């Protein structure tokens, strides 16, 4: 069992009525909303908190990529990951570095991503997890101008190109539909022979089939409420894996879950609750629904599926005005004292066969001191209870970087 700490780099100082005035993507006015000193502070706190997690016993740290977003200001997470790679290497902290962005559907420079990931793997001596999401529709299509109907084809071509660029002994020509290079010869190559590939996705069957067939790791993001969506998505995943001839190795699966731990249940709800509610409303909740699936982004069969049964979206449609209680009831965030949190996490891990738990340790406007406390509580009370899970089944973890512990 591997446990990672994960954060998005949110601006933490928006007014409480933000979501009633602004979206969290593309259109929010930067200069009217942002204080430069606070933005700088948030960037430093993000790195401080990730380092704190690395020093506190987490197996790894994780970042995502979003552009023109106020809830995750990581236009290129490799920049932060580079700082973390150097700092952890200097301190002898051999944690995994999971870049669960960069979006391959939106990039017009896939070879730059191949090279950047290779650099991270070199600095960290083989601790990179290479995350290759398709990317959300607002980011791929709206922010980056990719015609929605090309989204998937671009993703698959870019993925194939990057994997070939990493493994090829020879200089090769790539005459693709979206990329044309006469001489591909990426320097450096990754430190690892084959960096593990994680594919963040929300459970669309067409996407899952590709992930399973590539033998990549499926990273499911639980912001949609795992109580509502977890069983259907993970049952679908394991059924499809079996149909496609794969074993039930839990390390095939990674799962993002927001977790906040206090001394007692009451204290945790009191301390973290308001920030969690605000974080969901102003982040995911303030993305316009239509921008999550512009026409052409979702395959026509997927469209028919969603129109008939919108359950995969969980509580997203009402997230903008969601109440804290509903977030907790649906386990969008797991909040409580150590016993409550450990019990809920162990149940999810075992029920869904999760090999990598990616814990979101911060959300929205949550202040630095509270995030540090959460990391302390997690490392002291929760990590020891999760460590040994799956050891009795003796599965090989082929999706963990060879240089990490």
């Amino acid at each position, binding site marked *: 069992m591997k446990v990672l700490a994960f954060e998005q780099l949110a601006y933490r100082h928006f007014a409480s009525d933000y979501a009633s005035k602004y979206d969290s993507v593309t259109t929010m006015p930067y200069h009217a909303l942002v204080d430069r000193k606070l933005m700088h502070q948030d960037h430093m706190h993000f790195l401080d908190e990730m380092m704190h997690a690395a020093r506190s016993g987490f197996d790894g740290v994780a970042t995502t990529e979003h552009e023109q977003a106020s809830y995750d200001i990581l236009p290129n997470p490799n920049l932060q990951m580079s700082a973390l790679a150097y700092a952890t290497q200097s301190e002898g902290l051999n944690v995994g570095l999971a870049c669960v962005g960069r979006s391959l559907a939106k990039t017009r420079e896939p070879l730059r991503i191949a090279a950047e990931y290779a650099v991270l793997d070199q600095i960290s001596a083989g601790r990179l997890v290479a995350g290759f999401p398709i990317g959300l529709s607002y980011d791929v299509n*709206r922010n980056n101008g990719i*015609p929605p*109907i090309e989204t998937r084809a671009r993703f698959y071509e870019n993925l194939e190109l990057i994997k070939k660029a990493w493994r090829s002994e020879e200089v090769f020509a790539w005459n693709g*539909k979206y990329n044309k290079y006469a001489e591909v010869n990426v320097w450096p190559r990754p430190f690892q022979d084959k960096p593990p590939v994680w594919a963040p996705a929300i459970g669309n069957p067409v996407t899952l089939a590709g992930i399973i067939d590539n033998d990549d790791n499926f990273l499911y993001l639980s912001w949609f409420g795992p109580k509502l969506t977890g069983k259907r998505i993970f049952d679908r995943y394991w059924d499809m894996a079996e149909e496609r001839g794969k074993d039930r190795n839990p390390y095939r699966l990674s799962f993002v879950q927001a977790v906040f731990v206090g001394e007692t249940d009451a204290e945790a709800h009191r301390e973290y609750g308001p920030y969690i509610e605000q974080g969901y409303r102003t982040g995911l909740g303030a993305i316009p629904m*239509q921008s999550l699936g512009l*026409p052409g982004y979702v395959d026509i069969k997927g*469209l028919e599926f969603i129109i008939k049964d919108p359950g995969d979206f969980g509580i997203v449609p009402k997230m903008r005005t969601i109440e804290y209680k509903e977030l907790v009831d649906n386990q969008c965030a797991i909040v409580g004292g150590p016993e409550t949190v450990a019990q809920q996490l162990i149940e999810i891990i075992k029920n869904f066969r999760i090999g990598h738990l990616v814990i979101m340790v911060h959300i929205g406007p949550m202040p630095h001191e509270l995030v540090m406390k959460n990391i302390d509580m997690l490392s002291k009370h929760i990590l020891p209870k999760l460590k040994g899970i799956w050891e009795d089944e003796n599965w090989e973890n082929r999706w963990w970087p060879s240089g990490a512990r």
Partner: protein
Amino acid sequence: MSAQVVIKGPERTEVVKAWNDQIDVRVKIAGSGPALVYLHPAAGLYWDQFLDKLAETHTVYAPEMPGTTFGDPYAIHKVDTFLDLVLIYEEVLRKLGLKRPVAIGQSFGGMLMCDLAAHFPDIFSKIIPLDPAGLWRDDVPVLTNQLYLDKPENLPGYLFLDPSIPAAQAMFTPPADPEMMVKHIAHTVWSLGCVAKFIWPFPDQGLAKRIHRINVPTLIIWGKQDKLIPVAYAEEFQKRIANSRVEIIDQSGHIPQMEQLDKTLALVKAFIAS
């Protein structure tokens, strides 16, 4: 105005094999008389009263853009570029055996028709763009990307000055059968996605560089209150096409042939007869 909108619709369908036999292009046809080609807008082919009326005097040929044909959605993946699309349409019109027909194109269809006329100066005898896409001015943004981003219930407001007119209501009413309703909605969204391949994020494929090649008589018709592609673009088309004139239709949004059917039809018929 009657609340009932009666549409006769196409009389037959011809399937033309195109693009080295990789794509079956479905062409809906009605009427008799001289050939007239109609190119549809971004939501796919919707056969309306305007096409019924044209079919009273002409043989109307309305090809469906690859991908927008019901039951054949993945044909779009065989069309990589706008040039591919222009060549496919030229092939289809040639294989239909049409000799320099009159052409009418609405919105995206107008953009495609203008580029066909620019690429192949002899393909049409006359063209009638109805509120066409294809040009771009920074100071007068075309709002097609906003239409794609907005909530579905706001769509009629981009297309009509008065979305309550019966013709608009009829167009936006999905089938009552639940299974068909799902398929209809998915098909409409997919059709918008297919056309977005050529108009996302802007409906600009370089027509401004080629439009001077159009040399056939051209009647540009524009709804005065068009919110999607503002009427300022009527002059932009007019000044770039040598043998062209503009007719502005008052009390009409983006689809004058639905919102002001009689006026639009009279202008079209007079122009064809001239």
